[in-house]
């Protein structure tokens, strides 16, 4: 036999072994998820909840008569409703899943993410950094501000980068969320359960977001907040009761390398990761569009500050508690090694060559084992609510940016009716993209790392350009465009691109190091181009507001 044939035979043999292992793992996974306590009563609770959400969307449709009402709830949201809706939006099922995965793999050290985000949110709440002056501008989207402060090109470019980053960012939401539902309800993951769940959930979200816009989004966010806050507290106490706090701490100490120290080089994180998290925390809390859209819908800038200050608690919670559930899942699985439920340890702790246990299933499988009938239905309904409230807000946000800041400035005059219709079309198109991306994207990064890298494509440039526009008199349109483009280079940190760059350069940079470089590039380019190419001192160009009316008063920075 020729050496080539030997090679082909080896490849075929290897592929066969891999396929066999995958089938074995998939079979194990169906057996694992089937051990859940989820029952018919729980299905009734879940279906009832979903129906209520759709009815709300139908009922509030009559209030969405202007673009300001459709995408900004008529700027009439009070402080407490603002806190609930901010929490509802940002505490999505994907948030729960990525933090649980971080806790499952990194232990208590992963709490640093929640701590940093909580502190950053508090700083922004107390100072009003970016969000308060932006609310005073009475814009409905961030790129609308770019046009007021800079020029129309900055608005269109900013709108394109923002929506691309946002849509890529939410690309994994649907599949990750569906894994939770499959894991906790015991649906068979081998029988197309994930794509079917993805499709059903997406259709429900599309119906009520298309119908009611921001008003239905805010009310369903509130319902989710109430249900989820109850569920989160009860579930955490049950998990502690089941495993014991001392045992959880002892298991992490014994079985996880640096499960407490986030800056140790051998931990899942490290110094560059932590530094990037600090930068990312400040930037996302100040400029992440779905959060800012909540700030812009508030009744006053004082209400915005209060909203951010109070939301700092829920921001720390949304990361710390799910990470703790992930830690509990690890401890629970570790202790099943010698028990009747030993298949859990066999699957999740398999470190043999070629084995790739899907850690995303660990937390839902754990909850499926410890939560009693009835409560598991409420928690699942709350998680579906979390899933839907994130999706509806994100769909509405990216589609409204595409209409307001890309299509409308290019087309010129557009009626309110046309804008709302275009927004609805984009909502559906983005939904289809997210569905397809969720099915076909396969990356090995932690979910959190994927989200950080795709989000950074937008927020690095946006934070620099917004902060510069609001607080620096010499910021110019050329600087803004350069800053936005350099900020978008953070997309190179996404695993599939980063791997190729590292391969060519022979380096091992992680997404955090790519992110830090793009922040540096963006700041440098923004300052350099603003100084080299300043704007003309006066401008009479019209700025289109939410409903297409012209506003001839260009923005001035807060320092004026």
């Amino acid at each position, binding site marked *: 036999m020729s050496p080539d044939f030997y090679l082909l035979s080896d490849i075929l043999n290897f592929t066969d072994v891999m396929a066999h292992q995958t089938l074995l793992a998939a079979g194990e996974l169906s057996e694992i998820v089937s051990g859940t306590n989820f029952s018919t009563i729980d299905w009734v609770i879940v279906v009832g909840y979903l129906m209520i959400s759709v009815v709300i969307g139908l009922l509030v449709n009559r209030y969405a008569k202007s673009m300001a009402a459709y995408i900004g709830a*008529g700027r*009439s949201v009070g402080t*407490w*409703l603002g*806190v*609930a809706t901010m929490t509802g939006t940002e505490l999505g099922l994907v948030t729960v899943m990525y933090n649980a995965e971080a806790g499952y793999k990194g232990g208590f*050290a992963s709490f640093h993410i929640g701590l940093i985000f909580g502190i950053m949110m508090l700083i922004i709440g107390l100072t009003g950094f970016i969000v308060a002056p932006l609310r005073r501008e009475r814009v409905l989207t961030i790129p609308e501000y770019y046009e007021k402060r800079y020029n129309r090109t900055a608005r269109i470019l900013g709108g394109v980068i923002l929506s691309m980053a946002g849509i890529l960012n939410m690309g994994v939401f649907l599949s990750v969320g569906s894994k939770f539902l499959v894991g906790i309800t015991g649906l068979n993951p081998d029988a197309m359960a994930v794509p079917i769940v993805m499709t059903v959930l997406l259709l429900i979200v599309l119906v009520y977001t298309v119908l009611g816009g921001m008003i239905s989004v805010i009310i369903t966010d509130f319902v989710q907040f*109430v249900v989820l*806050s109850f569920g989160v507290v009860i579930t955490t106490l049950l998990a502690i009761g089941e495993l014991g706090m001392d045992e959880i701490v002892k298991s992490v100490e014994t079985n996880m390398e640096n499960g407490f120290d986030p800056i140790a080089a051998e931990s899942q994180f490290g110094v560059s990761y932590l530094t990037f998290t600090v930068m990312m925390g400040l930037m996302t809390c100040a400029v992440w569009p779905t959060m800012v859209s909540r700030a812009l819908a508030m009744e006053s800038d004082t209400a915005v500050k209060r909203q951010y200050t109070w939301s700092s608690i829920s921001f720390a919670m949304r990361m710390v508690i799910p990470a703790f559930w992930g830690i509990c899942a690890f401890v629970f699985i570790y202790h099943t090694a010698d028990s009747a439920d030993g298949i859990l340890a066999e699957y999740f702790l398999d470190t043999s060559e070629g084995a790739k246990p899907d850690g995303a299933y660990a937390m839902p499988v754990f909850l499926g084992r410890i939560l009693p009938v009835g409560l598991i239905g409420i928690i699942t309904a709350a998680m579906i609510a979390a899933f839907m409230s994130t999706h509806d807000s994100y769909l509405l946000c990216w589609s409204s940016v595409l209409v307001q800041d890309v299509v409308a400035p290019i087309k010129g005059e557009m009626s309110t009716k046309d804008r709302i219709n275009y927004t609805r079309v984009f909502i559906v198109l983005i939904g289809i993209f997210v569905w397809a991306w969720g099915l076909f994207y396969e990356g090995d990064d932690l979910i959190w790392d994927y989200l950080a890298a795709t989000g950074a494509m937008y927020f690095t440039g946006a934070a620099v350009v917004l902060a510069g526009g609001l607080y620096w008199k010499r910021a110019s349109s050329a600087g803004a465009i350069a800053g936005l483009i350099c900020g978008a280079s953070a997309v190179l940190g996404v695993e599939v691109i980063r791997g190729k760059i590292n391969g060519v350069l022979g380096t091992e940079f992680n997404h955090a190091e790519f992110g830090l470089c793009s922040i540096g590039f963006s700041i440098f380019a923004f300052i350099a181009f603003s100084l080299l190419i300043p704007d003309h001192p006066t401008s009479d160009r019209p700025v289109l507001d939410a409903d297409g009316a012209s506003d001839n008063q260009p923005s001035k920075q807060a320092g004026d």
Partner: protein
Amino acid sequence: MTWQGLWIGMLWVVLVGFAAMSVVVSFLGARDIKKMLARLAEQSSDADVDD
């Protein structure tokens, strides 16, 4: 303070703080919904008159 002490302390502070905040936000948020819908109804009747 050790990392271990920091994280466990943080877990309890966050859990208790969030539980307390949830109660407050649930009651006052429901009141805000009523106000928001009243304002939106007003805005939408104004829009009807304009039309």
